[in-house]
């Protein structure tokens, strides 16, 4: 392999602060998942349990999209271009689950 062109590449030292932050986010995701397991076996099935699970899932999704996918640090217009459609999707989910519960009453 020709090594002459690789001499132009400047390798920077690891960004310790950034790497530490990424591992912190990973730790938070792990702790939330462990907490979800705890709830799965200690709480009775019901609307409260479901609400907690959905809430924790949204927190996890926020960390993955915001930190790992870096969306939090992108321009405002990109941030909202992604988020606004998702808000409509969330509403669609709520509406259809509500509709399904109504169907179960007449079954």
């Amino acid at each position, binding site marked *: *392999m020709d090594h002459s*062109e*690789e001499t132009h*590449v*400047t*390798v*920077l*030292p*690891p*960004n310790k602060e*950034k*790497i530490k932050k*990424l*591992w912190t986010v*990973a730790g938070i*995701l*792990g702790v939330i*998942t462990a907490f*979800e*397991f705890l709830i*799965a*076996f200690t709480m009775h*099935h019901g609307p409260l*349990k*479901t609400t907690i*699970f*959905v809430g*924790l*899932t949204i927190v*996890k*999704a926020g960390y*993955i*999209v915001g930190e*790992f*996918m870096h969306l939090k640090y*992108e*321009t405002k*217009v*990109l941030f909202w*271009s*992604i988020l606004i*459609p*998702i808000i409509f*999707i969330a509403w*669609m*989910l709520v509406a*259809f*689950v*509500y*509709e*399904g*519960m109504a*169907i*179960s009453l007449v*079954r």
Partner: protein
Amino acid sequence: MASTSATVAPGKSAWDGGVSPMGVSYGKLMMWFFLLSDAFTFSALLITYGLVRSSHHAYTGTVEAFKFSQNYWPIPEKVYSSIPFFHGLEAPLVFVGLMTFILIMSSVTMVLAVEAGHRMDRPAVEKWMVWTILGGIAFLGCQAWEWTHFITGTEYGQSVAEGTKFFGANLVHNQYGPPDFADFFFFITGFHGFHVFSGVCFNFLIYYNTVTGVYDRRGHYEMVEKVGLYWHFVDLVWVFVFTFFYLV
């Protein structure tokens, strides 16, 4: 990317041309909008699942007294309660918890590869890409096991007619509950697994290009970032599948 955050001339808007108004390159922006459209597809599947599931009766008794029945939707800790090599051991959600852990860890190694790419650090990108690929393959292996167990079923089975029993699940019969339950399981986890498989292929391509020095010659590692976005999205979808299929 410094080249995309050009300053806007006085009296001009960022949308008048010459700069990227969203501050990212064309490729990255298109990846974001592809992922948004992919999110619509997954949402369509999950919303349909939510509608059909909530239109079935829920199980109201205690967890201990639970029995598989066609009359109500099963509770997840009774369906997914096996781990490989420990036949007969009740270990609810342990295996799927391991799968979740594997996928989150491979997301972390991916973001570390992206960080190394920003620094043009080729050996570090190679190292973290190998870990990411291994994580993806491990997840796919677990899923193959999960599917095999789901299709094969438990020894209890489900009586379908006088004297006949059905074991496991396919698209028509399902020992665990209503057939719809198995259909959604196959479609949603299958569609997600297909994404993981494509992701592993893309990751391997990135790894190959890194090793052969393509990105060093190009002068940047942005492809690692773009495929990284896709890989994180696959992890993100799993977070939702995990909640709606295995926890709720």
